[in-house]
């Protein structure tokens, strides 16, 4: 007698439970399609446009940021180093090489959710294309470490996972068709402290 209601209940439980769970999981796992990946770095050139896919739009609405427009710039984010290990706030890194052409760029550190990791006052928590020292061939090497270092240094001392954010202002990168040829800085891990 109770068979039909039980079956209806099962159907509804699977539909609502499964639908909600899978949507939440998908939105957590991906920030949308259409990313361009260069080594450890990835960017979403269409995130702020009407061409963004539904997952990217849901993410965009949840984050509530004022995104950079096409003529403004492009934001690259790195979650891992060159070897594919997640970036940790307990490790020291070297970011070296060159960036694709841009009029201005900044390199800063964010947590896994994208919020900036701020250093205490008078410690550098970001560098930009004006303040970075270069070699004679135009390349640079930036040390990201808890202990101060000579040359280019960004302080990183936190216990959680981090991401490196490279913001390029006024860059033709987004429109560039041959993405694979672009040089991005390499992120190599120097060492880690004990937890």
């Amino acid at each position, binding site marked *: 007698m109770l*068979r039909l209601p039980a*079956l*209806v209940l*099962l*159907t*509804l*439980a*699977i*539909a*609502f*439970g*499964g*639908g*909600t769970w*899978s*949507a939440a999981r*998908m*939105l957590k796992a991906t920030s949308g399609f259409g990313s361009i990946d260069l080594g450890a770095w990835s960017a979403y050139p269409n995130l*702020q*446009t*009407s061409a*963004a896919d*539904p*997952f990217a*739009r*849901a993410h*965009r*609405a*949840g984050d*509530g*940021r*004022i*995104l*950079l*427009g*096409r*003529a*403004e*710039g492009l934001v690259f984010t790195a979650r891992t180093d060159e070897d594919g290990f997640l970036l940790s706030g307990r490790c020291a890194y070297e970011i070296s090489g060159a960036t694709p052409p841009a*009029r*201005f760029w*900044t390199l*800063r550190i*964010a947590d896994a959710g*994208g*919020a*900036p990791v*701020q250093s205490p006052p008078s410690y550098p*928590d*970001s560098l*930009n*294309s*004006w*303040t970075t020292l270069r070699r004679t061939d135009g390349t640079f090497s930036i040390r990201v470490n808890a202990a101060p270092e000579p040359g280019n240094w960004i302080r990183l001392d936190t216990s959680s996972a981090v991401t490196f*954010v490279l*913001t390029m*202002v*006024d860059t033709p990168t987004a429109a560039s068709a041959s993405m694979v040829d672009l040089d991005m800085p390499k992120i190599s891990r120097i060492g880690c402290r004990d937890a």
Partner: protein
Amino acid sequence: MRSVLLATAIGLVGAAIIHIIIVLALPMWTGKDAWTRVREMGAPNVFYALANEPNPTGLFNDDANIHTAVCHFDITEAPVRIIATGDVPIWTVAAYDTASNETFSMNDRSSIGENVDIAFVTPAQMLQLRRAMPASLERAVLVELQREQGYVALRAVAPLPSQEPAARAFLAGALCAPLKLDPA
């Protein structure tokens, strides 16, 4: 047993439909999307410079070197004009509709002269302007927007700490005012 399998199969189809509905409907219901946050900053037609630190408005400068000011507008009645002048190395500006889709963006290299001078108009206002262009708009960049409501983000880049006062002054002096058109 077969009816249990049938119920599970229908449930999975329902789950797929609900998955799609949630993902598509979410942007309308988060309550913390950029348009909602910009509107909560205050009255329209005023530029609000964002703080560098996270704060209750939810909007702040992600990048300490890039200062942002936002202004929301409605051009149903009259066009809105964006004007800013100052000594900043780089400025950029982008306009978004209420769904936060980019409708327009430019930077100082693509502008006429060094200053920000943009007018956002509806297609009908554009026709009116083409008939009789006011002298004050001759050097402005005219942008036709398909949707009346939206917001504009103006950014000033300050690579060095010594340039921050200039960037702040650039944003503090920025205008986002409705433009009076003579009825023709």
